[in-house]
C-alpha cells in the first residue's frame, strides 16, 4: 500500500517546480521586461542637484563693468528634519512672526516632509551673513546659493533687459531649461542668452529613505561641472549713456548714438526709464507690476527701438540724395519759395519766412518745405518711368536702402520695422493707381504715413557721414575676448545712392549748424553736421527731432535725438544732440548753462521750461 503511493513524489516535485517556474517567469517580467522599476529606483535614491553657473559679465567700451553677479541665497528646509529649531531666533533673523513660520513650514510639509522646499528665497549677502553664523541652531534648514544680476550703474535698463524664471512654454520647447532655471527675458540678456548663461552642471547625490545624504553617486562618475557664461564687451559708452539719461530726465523720447565707421552703438537712451536693479531678486515681481501698470509714462516701452515717428524735415536729406541719384536734382537746382507750396484745391504746404530762391545747400540749411516738395514731385513725376507707381516703387527701394522702413537687425530684441508705405497702401486708400505725386506730397517733407524709429534715424546719420554705407548697428562689439569683433555685424550695407552725391548734402548739414536752423547748438571748434526735424503730431505738441554726426570728416559719432511733444527740432533735440557730441568728443561739457537748462527741464509736467528768452534762436524747419 505504502509503496504504491511512491508515484506521488512526482506530483509533489511537480508542485515544487511549478511554483519555481512561476517565480522565474515573474522575475523575468519584473527584472528584464519592464523598465519602470529601475526608473523608480533611481527616483528613490538619486537626487540631481543642479549646479548653476555664473552668468557672463557685461563691460562697456572702455572696460567699465556694467553687469555682474552677486551671490544670493535660498534658505531651504526639509520639514522632517526641522526639529528643535530655535524658532524665535530664526523668525527674528528673517523678520517674520511665528504664525508665518508655521504657515511656511506647513506649506513645505504639504509638498513633502522628506524633500527640500524653499523657505525664504534670494536672501542678500549681507542678511545671509547673520544667518550663516546661527544656521546650526536651525536643524533641517540649509542654504542653497544662487546668483543675482547686479548693475554697477542704474542705466540702460531696456538694453540690458532682465532675467526671470523660465516659464512652462520654454521648458517644454527647450530641453536645456528646467523648472527654477533663469533665462534672459529681454534685452541683451535675451538676445545673448546662449552665450551669457554658460553651461549648467549636475551633481548626483545618493540619499536614503529619510532623504539623508549618503554621498556621491558612483564616485561622481556622472557628475558634470558648471561652466560660467561668456563675458560680453558692449559698445556702450557708460559716461555717454548716463549723461544722455540725465539730459532726457523728465522728458519722453530717446537718444541713439552710433560710431559710424563700425556700427557700434554708443548709447541707447529711452526715457522715461528705470533703474535695472529694481527688477532683480525677490523685489522684481512687485516692481515689475508697478512698471507695467504705469500707463502714463510707459517706462517699459523702449522708444529707441519701438517708437515710430514721422521724421519731419530730417527726411529732406533723403530727398536730396534720392533726387540726385534719380537725376532730377543738382546742387545748382534752384527753386523759389512763396511761403508755401500749393498742392491744389486751395491746400498749401506752408513754409516759414526765409530768403528765396534757394539752391540745394541753402534749402537744407534753411529747411525749405517748398523746395523739397518740388524735389519730391520731380522724383515721382519723372518722365523716364511709365507710371507714378513705377517711380514711387523706385523711390521706395532707394529710401529703404538707407535701412528705413524695415528692421535693421540690431542685437537687442524688440526693434520695429518703421513704415515706408507700399503702393498697395495708397491703392487701398485712394483706389488703384488713383494717386499721384500731389496726393502723397507730405512724404517729401517727412510727414504723413511715414514712420521711422530713432534707431533708424541714427543709422541715417551714420550712412550720410559714411557717404553711403553702414554696418548694422549693434550693442555687443566683442564676445569673450575684448578685442574680437562680433562676427554677426561685419557686412557693409551700401545704399542705392552713389557716394558722389553725399558731399553736397553734408555741406548743407554743416551749414544747418553753423548758420542754419540749428545754429544755437553749435559747439566751438567742433564742426558737426546736423539736420533739424519737427514731426507733426495729432495728439499734441510737435515732436522735436535732430540727427547729426561729428566731426564732419572721419566722424566719430552719429546721433539721433527725439524729444516728444516738445516743439521745434532746434528747441530741444538739437541742443541735446549737441551736448551729447561735446560730451563724447571732449569727455567734458563746457556749456554748463545749456546743460543745466536741458537737464532741469521737465517737459512732462511743463516745469523749468526756460527757452522763451532765446526764442529768436530757434528757427522752425
Amino acid at each position: 500500500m505504502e509503496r504504491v503511493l511512491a508515484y506521488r513524489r512526482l506530483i509533489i516535485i511537480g508542485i515544487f517546480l511549478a511554483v519555481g517556474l512561476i517565480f522565474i517567469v515573474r522575475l523575468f517580467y519584473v527584472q528584464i521586461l519592464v523598465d519602470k522599476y529601475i526608473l523608480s529606483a533611481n527616483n528613490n535614491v538619486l537626487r540631481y542637484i543642479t549646479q548653476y553657473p555664473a552668468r557672463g559679465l557685461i563691460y562697456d567700451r572702455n572696460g567699465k563693468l556694467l553687469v555682474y553677479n552677486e551671490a544670493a541665497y535660498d534658505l531651504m528646509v526639509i520639514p522632517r528634519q526641522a526639529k528643535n529649531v530655535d524658532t524665535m531666533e530664526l523668525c527674528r533673523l528673517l523678520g517674520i512672526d511665528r504664525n508665518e513660520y508655521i504657515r511656511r513650514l506647513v506649506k513645505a510639509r504639504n509638498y513633502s516632509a522628506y524633500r527640500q522646499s524653499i523657505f525664504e528665497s534670494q536672501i542678500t549677502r549681507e542678511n545671509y551673513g547673520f544667518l550663516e553664523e546661527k544656521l546650526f541652531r536651525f536643524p533641517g534648514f540649509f542654504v542653497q546659493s544662487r546668483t543675482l544680476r547686479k548693475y554697477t550703474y542704474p542705466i540702460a535698463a531696456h538694453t540690458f533687459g532682465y532675467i526671470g524664471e523660465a516659464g512652462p512654454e520654454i521648458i517644454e520647447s527647450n530641453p536645456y531649461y528646467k523648472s527654477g532655471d533663469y533665462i534672459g527675458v529681454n534685452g541683451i540678456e535675451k538676445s545673448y542668452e546662449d552665450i551669457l548663461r554658460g553651461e549648467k552642471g549636475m551633481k548626483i547625490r545618493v540619499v536614503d529613505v529619510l532623504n539623508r545624504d549618503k554621498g556621491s553617486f558612483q564616485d561622481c562618475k556622472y557628475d558634470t561641472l558648471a561652466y560660467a557664461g561668456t563675458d560680453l564687451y558692449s559698445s556702450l559708452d557708460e559716461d555717454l549713456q548716463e549723461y544722455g539719461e540725465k539730459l532726457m530726465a523728465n522728458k519722453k523720447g530717446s537718444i541713439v548714438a552710433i560710431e559710424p565707421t563700425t556700427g557700434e552703438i554708443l548709447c541707447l537712451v529711452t526715457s522715461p526709464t528705470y533703474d535695472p536693479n529694481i527688477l532683480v531678486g525677490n523685489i522684481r515681481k512687485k516692481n515689475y507690476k508697478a512698471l507695467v501698470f504705469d500707463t502714463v509714462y510707459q517706462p517699459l516701452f523702449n522708444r529707441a527701438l519701438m517708437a515710430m515717428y514721422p521724421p519731419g524735415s530730417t527726411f529732406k536729406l533723403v530727398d536730396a540724395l534720392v533726387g540726385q541719384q534719380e537725376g532730377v536734382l543738382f546742387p545748382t537746382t534752384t527753386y523759389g519759395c512763396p511761403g508755401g507750396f500749393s498742392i491744389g484745391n486751395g491746400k498749401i504746404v506752408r513754409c516759414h519766412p526765409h530768403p528765396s530762391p534757394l539752391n540745394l545747400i541753402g534749402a537744407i540749411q534753411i529747411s525749405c518745405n517748398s523746395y523739397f516738395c518740388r524735389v519730391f514731385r520731380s522724383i515721382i513725376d519723372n518722365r523716364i518711368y511709365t507710371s507714378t507707381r513705377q517711380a514711387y516703387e523706385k523711390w521706395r527701394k532707394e529710401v529703404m536702402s538707407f535701412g528705413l522702413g524695415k528692421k535693421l537687425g540690431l542685437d537687442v530684441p524688440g526693434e520695429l520695422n518703421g513704415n515706408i508705405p507700399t503702393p498697395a497702401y495708397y491703392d487701398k486708400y485712394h483706389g488703384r493707381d488713383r494717386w499721384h505725386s500731389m496726393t502723397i506730397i507730405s512724404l517729401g517733407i517727412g510727414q504723413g504715413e511715414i514712420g521711422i524709429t530713432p534707431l533708424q534715424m541714427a543709422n541715417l546719420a551714420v550712412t550720410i557721414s559714411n557717404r553711403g554705407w553702414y554696418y548694422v548697428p549693434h550693442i555687443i562689439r566683442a564676445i569673450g575676448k575684448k578685442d574680437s569683433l562680433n562676427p554677426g555685424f561685419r557686412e557693409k550695407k551700401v545704399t542705392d545712392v552713389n557716394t558722389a552725391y553725399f558731399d553736397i548734402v553734408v555741406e548743407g548739414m554743416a551749414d544747418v549748424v553753423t548758420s542754419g536752423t540749428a545754429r544755437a547748438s553749435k559747439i566751438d571748434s567742433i564742426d558737426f553736421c546736423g539736420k533739424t526735424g519737427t514731426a507733426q503730431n495729432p495728439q499734441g505738441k510737435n515732436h522735436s527731432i535732430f540727427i547729426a554726426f561729428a566731426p564732419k570728416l572721419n566722424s566719430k559719432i552719429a546721433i539721433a535725438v527725439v524729444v516728444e511733444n516738445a516743439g521745434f527740432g532746434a528747441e530741444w533735440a538739437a541742443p541735446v544732440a549737441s551736448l551729447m557730441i561735446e560730451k563724447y568728443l571732449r569727455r567734458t561739457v563746457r556749456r554748463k548753462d545749456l546743460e543745466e537748462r536741458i537737464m532741469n527741464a521737465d517737459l512732462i509736467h511743463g516745469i523749468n521750461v526756460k527757452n522763451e528768452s532765446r526764442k529768436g534762436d530757434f528757427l522752425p524747419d
Partner: protein
Amino acid sequence: MKVEKGIFYRIDWVMVILYLALVLMGWLNIYAAVYNDSHQQITDMHQKYGKQMIFILAAMILAVTIIIIEPKFFSQFAYFLYGFFLVMLIVVIFAGREISGSKSWFAIGGFGIQPAEFAKMATALALAKFLGSLDRNIKNPRHLIMAVVIIILPALFILLEHDTGSALVFLCFVLVLYRAGLTGYVLLALVAMPVLGVLALIINKFILTAALFVLSVLIYIRTRRRFRHLLIVLAVFLASTGFVFSVHYTVYHILEPHQRQRINVLLGNNTDLKGAGYNVNQSLIAIGSGRLLGKGFLQGTQTKYNFVPEQSTDFIFCTVGEEHGFIGSLIVIALFLGLMIRIVINAERQRSKFSRLYGYGVASLFFIHFSINIGMALGLLPVIGIPLPFFSYGGSSLWAFTILLFIFIKQDALRYELV
C-alpha cells in the same frame, strides 16, 4: 547490513552542501541589506550580520550534535517534543514579549526566541511518528482526524499569538497527508480555493455563484449521472458557494483593516503607494532595478538605504534581486528547489515510514516558506510575514530549520538501520 563506516561517511553531502551554500548566501545578504560604511566589519557583533554569524556558528554546533546523538532519540521523543513546544506556545502568550503586533517571542538576554519556529519542526516529527506507526491508516477516519488535530493544534495556538503567517505555514502538512494516502482531491481543492477566493473578491458573488452552478450542471451531465455523482457534484457546489460567501464575509467583516488592505493591494484595488501598497511596491522596485546581473554585492541602494521595509527579515529576497539580478535570483531559487527535491527523493528511499514521512514534512515546510516569502516579495501573494529559510535574519528560524533538516539528514544516513 554492515555498519562499518562512520556516520559522516554515510551522510548525504549534497543536502549538507546545499544547506551550507544557502546559509552562507543568506549571511552575505544580511550583511548587504544592513551594510553601512561606519560598520564595515562583517563580524561586528553590534550589527545584525555579526549576530547572524553567531547564530550560524550555534546552528553548526546543533547540526553536529544531532548527527552524533542516539539515532532513535527523535522518533522516541517526537511526542514529547511536540508536547513541550505546545506548552511553550501557550506560555508565550502570557510570558512573551510583543513585537510588531504578535506576542510570540521569549526574551532571553539580548535575543528573542520564537517557539513557533520550533513548533513547526516538532509538528513534523509528531505527524511522522503518528502516521509512521504500522497500524495507522489514513483511510481510517479516526486516524485522519487525529493527524489533522496534530497539525491544527499548534496552528491554533499560534493564531492566538496573532501570528497569522506562522499559522498558515501548517497548511503545508497536507502534502505529508497526501503522501500518506490522502485523496488527491484535497490538493485539487487547495489549488481551487485560492483561485475561487480571488474570484470571490473581484467578481460579484451572486454572478460567481451562478457561474459555479452552471459549471456543476455541465460536469454532472458529463458523468454517468448516477445518484452518487449528483450528490458529489451538489456537495462540491454547495461547498464552493459557501466558500465564496465566507471568503467575502471574512475579508470584509473579520479580517483586521491592515490585512484587508494587503489583500486589496494584491488584487490591484489599492494603489496607494505611500500607504498599504508601499512595501510591495518598494520590494518590486528593488528587485526590478537589479535587471539581469544585479548592481553587485553591497551596491544595492533600495535595500541598503531602507526603502524596502523589513529588508533583513521578511523582504530579504529583495537584496538578492537587487544586487544579484535575475541570474542571482535564479540561482537562489534553483538551490531551494534542489534542496527540496533532494529531500523528497531521499525520503522515498527510507525504509522506515517515520523517516519517509518526516522527510516529506521537512520538504513541505521548506516549500511553504519558500513560496510565501518569495511570492510576497514578488507581489504575487499578500504580505505575510514569514521568514525565508537560512536567508532571513534571526536565530530561532535558522536553528529551527537547521534542526529540522539535520534530523532528516541523520535519519537518511542511518536509513539501513532504522526500519
